[in-house]
């Protein structure tokens, strides 16, 4: 289909098409604009947007994301939510997370990260780790004053530096945190209910087996424990 260029000669932006303008007029319009800005920058808050940084601070929006942080329930660091499944290490685009799973002496995993490093000089705070983490263990922080003079160790955040409490998360992003807490509580109940149901079923089998065992007590001593 041919482009239906309507060819409606709309008026050129501000004034009638090709209006004859006194040569100097455009220059004075420009001067008028700068003049108005010069005068209004003294009283019009709309125009004067600069903020004197160290004294005043511009408010950051609620879901501003800077570097990630690990969430731990309660108040001690050792009940981190993170189980060192290292999904985030695989998904992280610049590969700046480094996790080593903690194993006890005979090699059984303790579902806890012994080392959890994030190289903050490489991280581009894209938020993919927080998105893919199935255990709500890692979220994006809002703190942005992190300047250090040490280029290597200063920018390598270890587990202690990264871990922050759940109520810090609640304070930082109320609706996201409350939603996470609600979801986790729901999962707890579901798990508890499932456990209870399993326990009940196990008890029910035990009784039925016991009943069966009572039914034939004579022929076998053991009976299940």
């Amino acid at each position: 289909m041919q482009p239906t260029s309507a060819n409606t000669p709309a008026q050129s932006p501000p004034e009638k098409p090709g209006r004859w303008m006194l040569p100097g007029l455009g220059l004075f319009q420009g001067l008028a604009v700068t003049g108005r800005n010069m005068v209004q920058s003294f009283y019009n808050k709309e125009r004067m947007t600069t903020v004197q940084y160290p004294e005043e601070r511009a408010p950051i929006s609620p879901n501003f994301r800077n570097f990630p942080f690990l969430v731990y329930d309660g108040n001690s660091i050792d009940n981190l939510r993170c189980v060192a499944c290292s999904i985030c290490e695989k998904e992280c685009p610049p590969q700046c997370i480094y996790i080593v799973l903690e194993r006890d002496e005979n090699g059984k995993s303790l579902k806890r990260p012994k080392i959890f490093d994030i190289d903050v000089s490489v991280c581009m705070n894209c938020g993919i780790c927080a998105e893919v983490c199935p255990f709500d263990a890692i979220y994006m922080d809002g703190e942005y004053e992190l300047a250090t003079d040490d280029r290597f160790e200063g920018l390598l955040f270890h587990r202690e530096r990264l871990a922050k409490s759940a109520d810090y998360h609640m304070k930082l992003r109320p609706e996201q945190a409350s939603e996470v807490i609600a979801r986790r509580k729901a999962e707890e109940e579901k798990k508890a209910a499932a456990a209870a149901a399993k326990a009940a079923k196990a008890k029910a089998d035990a009784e039925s087996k016991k009943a069966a065992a009572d039914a034939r007590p004579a022929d076998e001593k053991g009976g299940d424990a």
Partner: protein
Amino acid sequence: MSVDATDIQTSIRAALPDVEIFLRTNPGPSGQHSLLVGNGDLLGVMRFVRDELAFDFLSNVTGIDWPDPAKADAVASDGALRSPHGFLEVVYHLFSTTKRTGPLVLRARTVDRAENCTIPSVVSVFRSAEFQEREIYDLFGIVFTGHPDLRRILMWDEFADHPMRKDYVAPDDYEYEPTPHGEVLERAQTHYPQTAG
């Protein structure tokens, strides 16, 4: 709106009698089938497509490296396996600004990946290919015969290798990173022994 590759192929065959042009169906849901054109009549097809079929806008020229041809035929195949060894390929996406028709996809392949990987340059028909062909020459190593000014465009002139090829080995003189892991860690440790262990 999208273009029906088959009738384009028939119209090209009608106009240019002994042209090597084969339909390549695209298994994916996008439905953008392509036409593989022999190197010999690439320029003829391009000129025909531009002048008669009004595809006056060559939007995109992509270089692809196919070390094993099976993968290439999986992506755009007509069933028969065409070439026994790996090759380099260039895909052209053409559009028509007057008829507003969708991408006509043409493909051109080099003979092999080592010595004679040359494809005739279409700059004489479409000026928009000039920089894109230079980039493909720079990153893939396809020599475009007839290009007015074939030099490296992104890498510096003394750079020897072609980085976008699949068998390209990146130099490993990384600046030391505090959290190297995986093969990055091993390579970093070969450079910085004190960090090993």
